[in-house]
């Protein structure tokens, strides 16, 4: 056990440690997406999944192709697209709340006004 700790703390941080962190984040997002009923919580889960994908892009870029910037720019554009998506989704959710006074996915079977 002591050996394990010294190995972990003395060696460089491997790429699979970053991938493991993003893996846990992604599947926490999957669980939340499948279990929550409020649309805002589903949106939080989607943000978690997008963020996990961003960590993967950045860590592959940094570890495998350190001289290039493809993963860097992909992450930058993904952050911008996620911000857009969140803004539009929250506008839609507020509009639904105004019409139905609820943001649960179970009440969305009537889409007419």
């Amino acid at each position, binding site marked *: 056990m002591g050996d394990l700790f010294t190995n972990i703390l003395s060696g460089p941080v491997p790429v699979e440690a970053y991938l493991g962190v993003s893996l846990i984040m992604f599947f926490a997002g999957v669980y939340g997406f499948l279990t929550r009923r409020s649309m805002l919580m589903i949106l939080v889960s989607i943000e978690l999944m997008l963020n996990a994908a961003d960590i993967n892009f950045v860590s592959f870029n940094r570890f495998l192709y350190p001289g290039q910037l493809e993963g860097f720019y992909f992450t930058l554009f993904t952050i911008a697209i996620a911000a857009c998506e969140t803004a*539009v989704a929250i506008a839609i959710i507020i509009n639904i709340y105004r019409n139905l006074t609820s943001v649960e996915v179970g009440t969305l079977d009537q889409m007419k006004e």
Partner: protein
Amino acid sequence: MAEQIIFYVLGAIIAIFSIMAVTSKQIIRSATYLLFVLLGTAGLYLLLGYNYLFAVQIAVYAGGVMVLFIFAILLTNKPGENVKTELPIRRIVAGVSAVAGLAFCGHVIYWNIKKVVALPVIADITPQQLGHTMMGTDKYQYLLPFESISILLLACIVGAIMVARKR
């Protein structure tokens, strides 16, 4: 040594808070846990040497998106009300599928990427290099996606105003 300790602390923060964000009973708390996850991700970017990405993550995610989330939560939820979740059988199915996916992908990562890749030393990315890469039209330069993103942002502004306006 310091880098390893920082990484494992950040990784533990991200893992714990992302699980708490999807299991918390109150929606405002889970938004706060999401904020911690986003800040931890920004810390990982800083640890990897991408300072600009750190700043963008803080400004856009932890600043803009979280403010939107908290406004939306306060507009649509009664305070102190617990979040409703799906039926227990569905929660069990979702948990089993999430754990199964975690185990499968973890197995793939552990056995296929197991060779130790040392963190290659790179020079700091200068703002000149970033600007030339973002604004050039050559190979490995990204003017077209940049302009597409700006069109997308404009469309989002118009669309959000159209959807959320009072009739």
